[in-house]
C-alpha cells in the first residue's frame, strides 16, 4: 500500500462519513418525505442539490475526456447538457409544480386520467433511470479500480454494493441535504486540479477563459503532427450528428424523471424558476471548467508524455494500465512513445490528469472523492426514481392499492437493490464510454417524456390515446435507432447512436398529435386543468373564467 492509496482512501472515507452522517440525521420516516423531501428546500440549496443530482459520473469523470478526444465536436455535450435547462425551467417545471403531483408518471396518469398511460410512463422511467445508472456504476468502477489498482470490473462490483446500500437507506430527504454536501465536495474536487494546471501552464489562476492560447497552440502542434486540429469543427462526425446530439441532450434534460422530481421539492412556481436558474449556475461552474480541463490534459499529454522514452515513463502509467483503460504500444519499436501509440480511454482523463501533471497526492485523492460523490449522488437520485416508479406508480397505484406505507417502503428498497445489481451486471462490461451510455438515457427521455410532457402541459387537446401512442412509438424508434446505429452501422446524415433522440422525438410528437386529433378530445375538466397551468398558483381557471384567490382558506380548491 503506497501513500497515494492511503490518502485517497482517507479522503473518500471522510466525505462518505459526512454524507452518511447527514443522511442518518435526516432519516426518512414517512413516504412523502422519502420521495420529495417535504418541499421546504430554499431555491439556492435546491439548485445545488439539482446540480449534484445532475452532475453524474458522465459530467465529472467522462465529459472532459470526451471533449479531449473529440475536440470541438465534444462541445455538443457542454451545450446540450446545459441548454436543456431552459426547456425545463421555462416550459415544464413551474407548470408541473402547479399541477402538484409527486412523480412524472403520476403527472402523466392524472393529466390524461389514464392508468395505462401511468403504467407506460412508469416503465419508461425505469428504462431511462436504469440505462443512466449503468453509466454511473461504470464510472464508480473506474474510480475504485484506480484506487485499489485493480481491474475496473472489480471496482464496479464494489460500487454496486455501495450504491445499493446508500440509496436504499437514504431516501430523498437525506439525499437533498446530502446532495448539497456532495455538490460542494465535487465542485471543489473538480476546480482544484483545473486551477493548478492553469497556473502551471498559463500562470493564470482563472482557467475559464485563460486557456484560449493553449487551444490555439495545440492547433499548431496538431498541424506539425499531421493530425486534425483540436478546435477544427466536425472532424469526428458530421455537423448533423453534432446538432442531433445537442438536441437529444437538451430535450432529454427536460424529460429526465429524476431531475424533474427535484422541482417538486420547491414550494411555488416562482421558486421553481429560481431553482432552475441557480442550478445552472452551479452546474455551469463545472461545465465552464470541463473544456479547460480537456485542453490542459491534452496539452500536457502532447508536450510532456508523447515523445518520451517508454522505459522512462513515470509510475502513474502502470497503475492506469492495470485498470485496462490505458494502452501504450511501441508499434514502430523505437523505444519512444509517439502520440499515435498512446490510447487513453475517455473515462480516465479526469482521474489520470492530476497524476500526469504531478499535482500531489492530496489533489489526486480529492479528485477520487469528488468522482465518487458525482457517481453516488446521481445514482441515489436514479434509484429513488426507479423505486418510486415501481413501488408507488406500479405497485401501489395499480397492483395493490391497499398496501401499507411500510410495505411500500419495503418494496421500494427491494426494487433499488434489484435495479442496482442488474445495472452492475451490465456495467461489468460497459457497452460504451460513460458519456455515451448516459447519452442513450437522454435519447430515450427525448423520445418518450419530452414530447409527452410538453404536449401535456401546453396543448389541452392532447389526450391519453395520443400520449400513450406517442410514448410507445418514440421509445421504439429511439431504441431501434440506437441499436441499428451502434451494431448495424445504419445512420441517417451521419447521425450515430448518441443522436438517436431527434428521431424518437419527431416520431413521438407526430404520433401524439395525429392520434390525439383523430380520437375524442379530453374531458372539459382535464382541458380546464391544462389552461389552469398558464397562470400562477393564485389565479385559478374554472369554467371559462379566471379567479384570483385572495385569502380565506375555504376558497382553496384542490
Amino acid at each position: 500500500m503506497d501513500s497515494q492509496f492511503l490518502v485517497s482512501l482517507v479522503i473518500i472515507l471522510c466525505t462518505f462519513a459526512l454524507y452518511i452522517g447527514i443522511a442518518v440525521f435526516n432519516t426518512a420516516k414517512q413516504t412523502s418525505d422519502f420521495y420529495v423531501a417535504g418541499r421546504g428546500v430554499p431555491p439556492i440549496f435546491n439548485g445545488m442539490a439539482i446540480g449534484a443530482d445532475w452532475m453524474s459520473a458522465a459530467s465529472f469523470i467522462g465529459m472532459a475526456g470526451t471533449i479531449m478526444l473529440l475536440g470541438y465536436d465534444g462541445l455538443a455535450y457542454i451545450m446540450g447538457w446545459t441548454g436543456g435547462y431552459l426547456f425545463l425551467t421555462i416550459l415544464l417545471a413551474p407548470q408541473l409544480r402547479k399541477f402538484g403531483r409527486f412523480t412524472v408518471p403520476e403527472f402523466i396518469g392524472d393529466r390524461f386520467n389514464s392508468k395505462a398511460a401511468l403504467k407506460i410512463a412508469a416503465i419508461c422511467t425505469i428504462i431511462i433511470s436504469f440505462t443512466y445508472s449503468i453509466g454511473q456504476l461504470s464510472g464508480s468502477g473506474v474510480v475504485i479500480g484506480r484506487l485499489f489498482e485493480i481491474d475496473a470490473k472489480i471496482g464496479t462490483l464494489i460500487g454496486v454494493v455501495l450504491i445499493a446500500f446508500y440509496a436504499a437507506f437514504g431516501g430523498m430527504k437525506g439525499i437533498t441535504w446530502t446532495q448539497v454536501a456532495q455538490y460542494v465536495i465535487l465542485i471543489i474536487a473538480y476546480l482544484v486540479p483545473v486551477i493548478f494546471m492553469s497556473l502551471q501552464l498559463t500562470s493564470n489562476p482563472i482557467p475559464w477563459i485563460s486557456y484560449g492560447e493553449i487551444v490555439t497552440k495545440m492547433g499548431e502542434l496538431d498541424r506539425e503532427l499531421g493530425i486534425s486540429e483540436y478546435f477544427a469543427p466536425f472532424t469526428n462526425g458530421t455537423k448533423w450528428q453534432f446538432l442531433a446530439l445537442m438536441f437529444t441532450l437538451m430535450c432529454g434534460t427536460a424529460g429526465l424523471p429524476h431531475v424533474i422530481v427535484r422541482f417538486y421539492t420547491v414550494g411555488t412556481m416562482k421558486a421553481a424558476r429560481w431553482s432552475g436558474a441557480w442550478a445552472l449556475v452551479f452546474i455551469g461552474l463545472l461545465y465552464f471548467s470541463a473544456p479547460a480541463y480537456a485542453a490542459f490534459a491534452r496539452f500536457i499529454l502532447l508536450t510532456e508524455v508523447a515523445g518520451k522514452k517508454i522505459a522512462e515513463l513515470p509510475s502513474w502509467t502502470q497503475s492506469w494500465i492495470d485498470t485496462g483503460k490505458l494502452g501504450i504500444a511501441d508499434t514502430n519499436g523505437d523505444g519512444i512513445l509517439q502520440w499515435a501509440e498512446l490510447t487513453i480511454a475517455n473515462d480516465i482523463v479526469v482521474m489520470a490528469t492530476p497524476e500526469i501533471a504531478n499535482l500531489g497526492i492530496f489533489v489526486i485523492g480529492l479528485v477520487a472523492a469528488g468522482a465518487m460523490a458525482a457517481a453516488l449522488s446521481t445514482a441515489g437520485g436514479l434509484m429513488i426514481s426507479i423505486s418510486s416508479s415501481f413501488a408507488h406508480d406500479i405497485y401501489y397505484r395499480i397492483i395493490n392499492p391497499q398496501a401499507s406505507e411500510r410495505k411500500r417502503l419495503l418494496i421500494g428498497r427491494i426494487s433499488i437493490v434489484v435495479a442496482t445489481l442488474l445495472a452492475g451486471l451490465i456495467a461489468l462490461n460497459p457497452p460504451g464510454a460513460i458519456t455515451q451510455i448516459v447519452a442513450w438515457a437522454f435519447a430515450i427521455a427525448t423520445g418518450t417524456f419530452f414530447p409527452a410532457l410538453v404536449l401535456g402541459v401546453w396543448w389541452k387537446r392532447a389526450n391519453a390515446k395520443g400520449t400513450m401512442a406517442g410514448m410507445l412509438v418514440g421509445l421504439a424508434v429511439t431504441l431501434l435507432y440506437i441499436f441499428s446505429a451502434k451494431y448495424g452501422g445504419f445512420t441517417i446524415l451521419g447521425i450515430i447512436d448518441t443522436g438517436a433522440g431527434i428521431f424518437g422525438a419527431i416520431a413521438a410528437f407526430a404520433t401524439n398529435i395525429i392520434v390525439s386529433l383523430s380520437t375524442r378530445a379530453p374531458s372539459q375538466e382535464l382541458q380546464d386543468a391544462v389552461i389552469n397551468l398558464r397562470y400562477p398558483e393564485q389565479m385559478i381557471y374554472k369554467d371559462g373564467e379566471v379567479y384570483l384567490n385572495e385569502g380565506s382558506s375555504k376558497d382553496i380548491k384542490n
Partner: protein
Amino acid sequence: MKKIDKEVADAYFREKNRYMFVYFALWFLVSYVMVAFADSLTEIQFLGFPFHYFMGAFGALFTFIVLLFVNAIVGDKIDKKYGIDDERNKEIGSKNMIDH
C-alpha cells in the same frame, strides 16, 4: 375569490409567452445557429480562442445562465404587476399536494 377579467388573465399569459419567445430565440441563436455556421467562424479570434470554440465552450452556456436569471426576475415582475402575492402562492402551493 375574485373573478378576474378574461382579458386581464389572457394578457398575463400573452405577456409571459412574448418573453418566452425572446428567450428561446436567443437560446437558438447562441447554440444551433452558431454550430450551423461553425465552419465559417474558425478564422475569427475572440479572447484568444477561435470564435466557434469560444461559443461552444463558454458563450452559449453563459447566455443560458443569463437568460434563466432574466426569466426568473421578469417572471417575478409580471406576477407583481398582476397583483400576485407570493406568500399566498406558497400557502396554496403547500396545500396543493395529493395525499398518499
